[in-house]
């Protein structure tokens, strides 16, 4: 009995709160609440609504850059009903496509520029278009996703026009012949071919507009443009059977093609070469003949 009494008293002591308060402390507002204390709270919101790509800025007509690339910049807006915090800011990618052409795409994700409002964010994208990319309409495709739903969403509503760039680099830009004599047959240039690098996206034949060569001592004497031929091939004087040139008139060189492509690939893409011949040297006086009187020959697209 005595043991039970001692155990009960001991239990009561353990259950008692160890507090101390003055008699009138209730006036000061003892409430039983915990005292206030600043606390950092982190809350992750994971919405379930899919994001939407609601806007793609229009892209004006783009000029290709000769022998280089053009950076095409544009902005996209991604919207999420669950708020901008639910948008995955590193998920927005873009590409340009055109049938038969290599896909051009962002090197990395489109970067977040700013929040447009509580539900929409603005991203900046840039894609490089190369000089040999085909002229015409290109499709713009954007993809992105949010954090909560995680589904990838697309916008393929935009296109832009990549302009035609007719451009070339020729080398050398002066032709020479060894000393030749009147009546001589199949006299070929001694510093051809003219190498024509296509530094744009033009893709068709190539012309030469020749001029008459006048004597530098007796200018009334001339070797007419019609005495020259040009060809894309050489060997066994085959260029002497090539396309006959004409004075001040563009002549398409048979078999020529601008052959647009990546010049750095080294596969011959983007390159053409011309070889020249005088099939029969006309009867003219002995002197030097040149284009100084009538102007340069023009290689053109």
């Amino acid at each position, binding site marked *: 009995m005595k043991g039970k009494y001692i155990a009960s008293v001991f239990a009561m002591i353990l259950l008692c709160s160890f507090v101390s308060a003055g008699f009138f402390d209730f006036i000061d507002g003892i409430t039983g609440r915990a005292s206030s204390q600043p606390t950092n709270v982190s809350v992750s919101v994971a919405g379930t609504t899919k994001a939407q790509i609601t806007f793609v800025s229009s892209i004006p007509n783009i000029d290709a850059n000769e022998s280089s690339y053009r950076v095409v910049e544009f902005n996209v807006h991604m919207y999420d009903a669950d708020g901008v915090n639910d948008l995955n800011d590193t998920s927005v990618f873009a590409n340009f496509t055109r049938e038969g052409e290599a896909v051009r795409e962002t090197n990395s994700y489109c970067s977040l520029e700013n929040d447009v409002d509580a539900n929409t964010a603005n991203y900046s994208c840039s894609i490089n278009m190369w000089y040999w990319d085909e002229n015409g309409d290109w499709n713009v495709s954007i993809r992105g996703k949010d954090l909560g739903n995680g589904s990838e969403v697309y916008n393929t509503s935009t296109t832009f026009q990549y302009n035609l760039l007719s*451009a070339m680099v020729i080398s050398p830009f002066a032709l020479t012949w060894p000393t030749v004599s009147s009546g001589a047959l199949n006299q070929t240039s001694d510093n051809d071919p003219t190498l024509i690098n296509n530094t744009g996206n033009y893709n068709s034949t190539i012309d030469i507009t020749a*001029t008459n060569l006048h004597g530098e001592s007796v200018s009334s004497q001339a*070797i007419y443009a019609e005495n020259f031929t040009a060809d894309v091939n050489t060997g066994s004087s085959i260029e002497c059977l090539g396309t006959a040139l004409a004075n001040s008139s563009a002549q398409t060189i048979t078999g020529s093609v601008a052959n647009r492509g990546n010049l750095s690939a080294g596969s011959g893409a983007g390159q053409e070469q011309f070889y020249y011949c005088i099939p029969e040297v006309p009867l003219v006086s002995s*002197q030097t003949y*040149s284009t100084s009187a009538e102007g340069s020959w*023009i290689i053109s697209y």
Partner: protein
Amino acid sequence: MKSKFLHSLVLMTLLSLIVVSAFGVSSPYWDGNPLELSAGDKEIVTLNLQNIANANDDVDAEVKIIEGSDIASLEQELYTVKAGSSENCFLTIEVPSNAKVGDVYSVKVETKTITPGDAGMVSMGTGMTTAFNVVVNGSKETNGAWYYVIGAILVIVVVYFIVVAKKK
């Protein structure tokens, strides 16, 4: 027989002077991608002259309209394009006000580099021909007038039905 060996063409082999000539012209219209305008409309087409590739020297270029000068004109024909840069050439297209829908005008502009025809050799330059069609489509005024006519007809029909309904 020296006379049989007329030295008719003596051109210096200046291999040490092998250099390149680079030039380009960009256009928003081409064969297959026509410019569409209404009768009486005017548009300025920008041709971008480029001297970017391997450009160590400035390039002088001449731009000429070789076809379509009845509707096309140039502000300027001679350009100097600085090394590594580009210049815009403005081509004004003005469709006659009496042109008919479906009329097609052909425009051809030739741009070529001006290279001196150096003595003692056959010098070479580059050229680009920009060719495109200008197609005359329905005039904007006509389209606008049609909208007004259709709107007026709709209003008359609605009013008619309201009046008929009230009479019943």
